[in-house]
């Protein structure tokens, strides 16, 4: 996944809540999904093509107390988003 950029599926409507969490309407199932605060921070970055490294940096900055497993957590989270068709890998623009 290194170097690959990811971006939201534009059909996944979402909204950040005052609590810092986010709600997403799944583009296929019409089910509502919730993101916790850490997930919401990552989701906010994914409104444009973003690398995993950039996401990990943002999480480390926003949550200085994040565990050492943050890198693995972010990778697993993005993989989950991809599998749910909420994000997709995008080709770099030339």
């Amino acid at each position, binding site marked *: 996944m290194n170097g690959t950029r990811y971006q939201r599926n534009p059909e996944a409507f979402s909204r950040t809540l005052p609590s810092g969490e986010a709600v997403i*309407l799944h583009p296929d199932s019409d089910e*509502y999904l919730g993101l916790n605060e*850490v997930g919401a921070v990552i989701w906010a970055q994914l409104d444009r093509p973003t690398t995993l490294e950039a996401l990990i940096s943002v999480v480390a900055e926003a949550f200085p107390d994040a565990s050492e497993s943050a890198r693995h957590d972010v990778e697993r989270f993005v993989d989950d988003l991809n599998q749910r068709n909420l994000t997709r890998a995008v080709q770099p623009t030339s």
Partner: protein
Amino acid sequence: MSGSYNIHNFGAMIGDRVRRVAFERAMSEVITERTTVLDLGAGTGWFALHALALGAKRVVAVERLPAIRHLHALAEGHPRRDRLQIVEGDSSELDEEFDLIVSDLRGSTPFFGDHFTVAADARRRLLATDGVMMPQHDKVHVALVENQGWWRRQVEPWLDAPPVDHRVLIEQITSTPARISVSTAQLRSTAGSAIALDYAELDELAERRTHSGHAELRGRSGTAHGVAVWFSTVLINGVGFDNGPARTDPTYGRTLLPFTTPLEVAEGETIDVRIDVRRHGGSWLWQWSATAEHGNRQGASLPDPSTSGSGSSPARAAAPGIMGR
């Protein structure tokens, strides 16, 4: 952004002179004494009566709402009453072809109720070969707008209302598209067309769940409270109208997609406005963003499940996570 009409709304539509004259002109260019006409979603049947006046061979007015019952009285004594059939029901029950299908199934934008589904079914099954469907195209336009009146009424009361922070209410208010009046003087950017709808492709429009588009706009110095949305239409080639801010209070109104906090706009700066409109059950959801050189705003008309009763708030966790609601 869905709903239904009553005779008061239908009256306002007829009272919109720009709209009425455009439909009159477009219909007069199509209808001859050999033309069969379907007034689809007829309301009180104004299109049907106008088609009769133009001498159409046969006219069917179909409408689900009880407003259609008034057409029996309105058409009574009409010299061509025998050419008119009034159907209170669904157009899916009809089974004949028409030379002209005329309808206006929109709300303040074309994304209204089952507009596309109903029109697509009519076009596919009920429009004769070489028949005419009216309208033919719509364009959805956007511009940044200043609306101090809306902001003062809807948001400001909650900004300084101790003892609690009312941010949750402001977030909910600004996640809800609103119907507003807009004048040209209130625009804080140029206007642009974000979505084009070609009704020759109605089947595809009806199938598509999400309609997306964007417009690159130029800023006009001031404070923007959201994105104003309206539409223009082509009924037949060369005949149409628009509901833009240059018009005074057209019947359709305009939609405001609000910002949670106002956006200061610099003169001449580039602003990319994106809108996505998605079918969800019987209604439409909106998602919007404005990306400027010195800031961006976004919103979506999704409910907050923790306050709407549709689910519990997700657990706070150290690791990023998704929870079903």
